[in-house]
């Protein structure tokens, strides 16, 4: 089972590098933002996999907090781009 | 911030407080005096400040609970449709010639409530080959992945619309 977790983590890291291409070269700010959002969702799963691999349940709490921060950051940046201020 | 005095408002605040408390107990996992006490304090402050965000509409709690349970019964059907739509998108991504023909459509619905509109927009983003671009009143602007031959997607959208309208007891 640990082998499957380790292989999943490595594959997810490779897909993060694929998304990083879009985040660096993507035309316009929207493409970069959606790439960063996708990287955030993959990071949540990687945190959970690390927690399972090393047997540390505290990583579940960390990934819950990371999911909330990812969502709020995306919404805040979208609002800033729309109105010019976060209010 | 306003605690209006009428009975339904106080009941709504109580339900929000109980839900927050369950969430706190699940996340903390300790049941001693310090953790439960600080949980009561935090949940009380949050309920006082923003307890009127959840139950804004003039609906009784019984009706909200009925809608909630009917929605839970609808979730497995929605998951099957989500799986089907994902296989479709995966086929279009992995096909060497990428058979897509995108465009923008508008869908008219008679929906009124905010929760219903949010549920319909989220379901439409997840299920057939469409994502919600704009919501203005009851009119939904969607971006479709396949325009030509997309009648099947539109039929699925009608299906979801009828189901959600029946669940939330509004005309579909």
């Amino acid at each position, binding site marked *: 089972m640990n082998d*499957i977790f380790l292989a999943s983590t490595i594959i997810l890291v490779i897909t993060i590098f694929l998304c990083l291409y879009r985040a660096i070269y993507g035309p316009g700010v929207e493409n970069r933002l959606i790439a960063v*959002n996708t990287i955030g969702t993959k990071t949540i799963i990687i945190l959970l996999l690390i927690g399972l691999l090393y047997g540390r349940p505290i990583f*579940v709490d960390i990934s819950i907090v990371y999911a909330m921060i990812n969502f709020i950051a995306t919404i805040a940046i979208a609002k800033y781009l729309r109105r010019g201020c976060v209010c | 911030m306003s605690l209006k005095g009428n009975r339904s408002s106080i009941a709504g605040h109580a339900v929000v407080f109980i839900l927050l408390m369950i969430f706190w107990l699940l*996340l903390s996992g300790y049941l001693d005096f310090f953790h439960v006490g600080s949980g009561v304090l935090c949940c009380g402050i949050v309920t006082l400040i923003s307890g009127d965000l959840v139950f804004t509409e003039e609906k009784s709690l019984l009706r909200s609970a009925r809608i909630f349970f009917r929605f839970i019964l609808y979730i497995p059907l929605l998951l099957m449709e989500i799986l089907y739509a994902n296989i479709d998108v995966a086929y279009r991504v992995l096909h060497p010639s990428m058979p897509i023909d995108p465009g923008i459509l508008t869908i008219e619905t008679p929906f009124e409530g905010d929760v219903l509109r949010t549920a319909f927009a*989220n379901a439409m983003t997840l299920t057939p080959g469409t994502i919600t*671009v704009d919501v203005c009143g009851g009119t939904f602007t969607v971006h479709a992945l396949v325009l030509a031959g997309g009648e099947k997607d539109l039929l699925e959208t009608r299906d979801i619309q009828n189901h959600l309208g029946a669940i939330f007891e509004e005309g579909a």
Partner: protein
Amino acid sequence: MLTILAIICILIGLFFMVVGAVGLLRFPDFYTRAHASGKCDTLGEGMMLVGFILYEGMTLISVKLLLLAIFIFISSPTAVHALVHVAYSRGVAPWKKGDERQ
């Protein structure tokens, strides 16, 4: 038995997450990329979380994972909708068949 089911769920989720990343690279414009990101990533995450729940069994961690799955299924389409709405109001033109890729 449950472990095999968990492995199947994790592999399906992994497949959809890889497809989401490939779609983010291959699709020609912003809106179609939002299709790939919004749909495939949400379902992939959900399937992997279901696999973790099956692997863990009935513990407090499983309840937390279930809460995380519900939160993701509500928040991820909302975030994608916010980004698409911003792009639409800023005037990003949608790609038509036959155009050059952006």
